[in-house]
């Protein structure tokens, strides 16, 4: 007789355990529900010295949301380190080797700062679940984050449900989070993926003489935005994009996609990022030879981690982004040195957009709070007003916001060159600085234009942006 599940009577009674568990759960829940205010979370930064700090008044709780799993996990320490740096520069002490260890004795505008860290895996579901945990369970006043494109759009949408919390984007670069969603309490103090390409299309067309190109990027929101920026500029001055290839995010064998790049094009725009860049570059070398002559690169090509991995294989590649190491600005040196001092493991990663974007976010929060003297009353209205009108005199120039609370800032066109500072890694040489690039890309994008995707924007000749040669800009 093997009918294991034929049981006499009272089968339903096994619901019993459910109840026992629930009662236990009730105790836990009551505990956690009630303790929030006291900061039950062991990772709150003020715990170490908050009581004895010079801060007066109610603490302000800031949540930080980034990725410690998934394809962008390698950049986790850069995101947390960058964000903490703005606090460290104001007298806080790092509580450990990593940004995610928090800081001690942090105060802003005289109010002690408590920190809570959240961690997602680059999917919008987990990002929103974590954002909800930070906002609704940990009761943060301000949330910094997230990291990746699709997450950013989802969190921006979620921010509309929580008007009492202020959201400042970490480093998620999809265009829609500010241009389309336009949540009144969501701010982004760094350029989006399209802004980061400013100058590349012009360079490819006018300097390299390219007319027919292919684009290649991972198949999701952020590369869509990068390709959108490149296509908008390159096509507006007469270039043609003959094909857009989209290997799935997480693909590592790119050989089949490299094979599909027609041999009769002038070159291609590479927006493969995250974990795929290294594999792509190597495989391209094996199949088609020297990559540097054939591509202009997206923002991942400006990343110091990628430089370190790829070394001489990418020397000569021209790329663009919101960070450049050779501007010579003293503020930049100060920033990069402070980052390395606070977090030695991050030495040499100052030009990482992951660190820089998060730094700008926390810097903006600090400046905003200082301006309103820590006043978060009336649903942060004074604070938000201050943020909206803020001009950060950042390490790499001014950052200010447009009416969608999206940054307007400089972009740097740069060439990867051999090692110039003796650290064994390639360095960059800025070819050109394009000033005050805004999200509309000089009118090309608006809330009414279709969201960047596999086919949009279309490749059409149009009004060239002012920084292109055809638009009257350039050297």
């Amino acid at each position, binding site marked *: 007789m093997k009918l294991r599940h034929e049981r006499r009577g009272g089968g339903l009674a096994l619901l019993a355990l459910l109840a026992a568990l629930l009662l236990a759960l009730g105790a836990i829940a009551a505990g956690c529900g009630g303790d929030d205010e006291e900061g039950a979370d062991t990772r709150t930064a003020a715990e170490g010295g908050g009581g004895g700090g010079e801060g007066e008044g109610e603490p302000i709780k800031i949540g930080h949301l980034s990725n410690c799993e998934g394809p962008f996990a390698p950049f986790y320490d850069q995101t947390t380190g960058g964000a903490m740096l703005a606090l460290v520069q104001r007298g806080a002490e790092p509580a450990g080797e990593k940004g995610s260890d928090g800081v001690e004795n942090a105060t802003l505008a005289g109010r002690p700062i408590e920190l809570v860290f959240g961690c997602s895996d680059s999917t919008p579901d987990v990002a929103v679940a974590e954002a909800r945990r930070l906002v609704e369970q940990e009761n943060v006043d301000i949330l910094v984050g997230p990291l990746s494109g699709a997450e950013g759009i989802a969190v921006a949408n979620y921010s509309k449900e929580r008007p009492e919390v202020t959201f400042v984007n970490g480093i998620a670069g999809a265009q829609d989070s500010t241009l389309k969603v336009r949540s009144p309490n969501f701010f982004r103090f760094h350029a989006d993926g399209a802004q980061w390409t400013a100058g590349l299309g012009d360079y490819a067309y006018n300097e390299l003489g390219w007319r027919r190109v292919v684009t290649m990027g991972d198949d999701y929101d952020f590369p869509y935005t990068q390709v959108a920026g490149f296509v908008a500029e390159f096509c507006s001055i007469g270039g043609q994009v003959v094909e857009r290839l989209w290997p799935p995010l997480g693909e590592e064998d790119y*050989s*089949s996609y490299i094979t599909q790049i027609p041999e009769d094009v002038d070159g291609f725009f590479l927006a493969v990022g995250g974990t*795929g860049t290294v*594999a792509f570059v190597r*495989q391209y070398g094996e199949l088609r030879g020297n990559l540097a002559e054939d591509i202009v690169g997206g923002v991942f090509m400006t990343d110091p981690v990628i430089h370190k991995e790829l*070394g001489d294989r990418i020397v000569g590649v021209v790329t663009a982004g919101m960070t450049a190491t050779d501007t010579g600005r003293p503020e930049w040196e100060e920033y990069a040195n402070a980052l390395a001092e606070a977090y030695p493991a991050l030495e040499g990663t100052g030009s990482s957009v992951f660190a820089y974007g998060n730094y700008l976010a926390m810097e903006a929060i600090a400046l905003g709070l200082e301006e309103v003297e820590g006043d978060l009353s009336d649903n942060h209205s004074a604070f938000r007003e201050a943020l909206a009108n803020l001009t950060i005199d950042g390490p790499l120039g001014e950052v200010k916001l447009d009416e969608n609370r999206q940054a307007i800032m400089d972009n740097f066109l740069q060439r990867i060159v051999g*090692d110039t500072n003796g650290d*064994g890694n390639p360095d960059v040489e800025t070819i050109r600085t394009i000033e005050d690039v805004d999200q509309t890309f000089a009118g090309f994008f608006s809330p009414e234009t279709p969201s960047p995707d596999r086919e949009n924007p279309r490749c059409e000749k149009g009004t060239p942006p002012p920084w292109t040669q055809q638009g009257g800009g350039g050297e």
Partner: protein
Amino acid sequence: MSQGADAALPLGRRLRLLTARPVELAVRILAVALAVFVLLWVLAFADDALAREPRTFIVVFLNGLTLAGLYFLVASGFTLIFGLMRVVNMAHGSLYMLAGFFAFELQQDFISFDPTQGFGPPPVSTLDWVLPLLIACVAVAAIGLVMQQVFLRWNQGQDLRQALITIAISVIIADQAIAHFGGIAEEIAAPAVFPDSVDLHVYGLTYPFFRIFVLLVAIAVGITLWAAIQRTRYGMIVRAGVDDRQMVSALGINIQLVFAGAFFIGALLAGLGGVLGGTMISVDKGNDTQYLLFALIVVIIGGMGSLGGAAIGALALGLVDAFGDVYLPAGYTNYSVLLIFGLLVLVLVVRPLGLFGRPA
């Protein structure tokens, strides 16, 4: 129980009379038609493409072939373990991934990085590649052996429970890999004596040397395994064990030793795949899922426990994978996963136990 059965009989009969044959038939016809359609579609495009762009076709074909080599390496270990012990090692992909990470870390330790020597990866001597390969393979094989001895040996025959145990282990390994091997996808550097690419002497094409090397290794491993199973005493015992474990034990052979050996070799093959794959493509945290899936598909197609089946299955998967990415109509290449699905369905409808599978 008999009471229940009696009560249900009329319903069962009714259902059977009404629908059994037509449903079964319809499903079969549908599945076969779908698969044939897809195949024809691909062939039509591929054929056309061969004439138009022979260069692309040849490269894609080689991509598929070399991928098949890698898939075979991974699947052969998986199928060997299953064939002998009826253990579905769901941590096989994790072993693959671990070997890649081990070899990568070891190689980083071996190559001294001197900033004054210029930049970029320094040249890798043959030893800097072979030694990490060997150590990583043996380490992973040892992990596999420990796993078998500690967790699987005492519950032989409870195959579902064993599968669940290996799933639990794979969850732990995956999470620990995230904790300890943070970083972007890395590549294990091939020895400097290997050229980057070789000249194919057709249409002026060159092709990555290491991919061809992996294919050759896979063929060599396949032949070795086949010979070992057919020609050696150990192979004889393994074959006998696959057919009748009890009988083999009864003959006084220490079947536990044979099991341990098979698990060791199976894990070793996963490790070899991991290091070769890590050099050919890259080492990354998602590899465990990916290569577990590949191993599953290969053995489902080829038949569990069959070495020849693994070879055929790997070939089918590799080629469908490579061609699907390129030769579906423009704009639909992202549907290529449906081709793999179609392949699976086709095989299962025709032969539920896989092409070379036999009932246990």
